[in-house]
């Protein structure tokens, strides 16, 4: 049964890698700025998923802290970029 679980883990990792590829394509060809911000948002969530799957594969808990930091900083980055698109400035006086 371990082999089936490993195969499912491989499948999930390949799916997440393909999803990162699609988000990267949208990041480069996106016609408007908000498309690129959305693709960046999807890209960091997929990177966090990659780290979580690596943590499952190697049985290490060190990946969780990195995944937590990625989700935190990705949220801050997306919010700052959306605020910049909305107002033309990030920190308002």
């Amino acid at each position, binding site marked *: 049964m371990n082999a089936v*679980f490993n195969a*499912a883990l491989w499948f999930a990792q390949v799916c997440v890698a393909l999803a990162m590829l699609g988000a990267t394509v949208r990041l480069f060809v996106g016609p408007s700025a908000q498309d690129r911000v*959305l693709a960046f948002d999807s890209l960091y*969530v997929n990177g966090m998923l990659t780290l979580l799957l690596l943590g*499952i594969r190697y049985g*290490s*808990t060190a990946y969780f802290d990195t995944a937590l930091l990625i989700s935190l900083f990705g949220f801050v980055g997306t919010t700052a970029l959306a605020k910049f*698109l909305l107002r033309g400035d990030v920190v308002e006086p």
Partner: protein
Amino acid sequence: MSSPILPLWVTIPGTVLLVLGGLATLVGSLGLLRLRDFFSRMHGPSMTNTMGVGAVLLTSMLALPAWTGRPMFHELLIALLLLTSAPISTSLLIQAALYRARVRGSA
């Protein structure tokens, strides 16, 4: 650290959840890639944010205790953070897109 023999109550739900989460992530990215305009493209990554992340976090909560031998609850922190932050960033992005469309005069 060599791979332990995972018990059956980990591998069966883990396999189903991993396949479901991988498919949801892939479908979300395809929606981001192939839909026509920005407001329909918003729907793709939210599928990754809910179903993909949820399935992978549940698998991790199942599989990591079998590796380390003690219960792990770190994943709940990531789930809480992502479930609270994703609607906020999505709403801000929608507001920015609506504002830009209105300024350009094509809304």
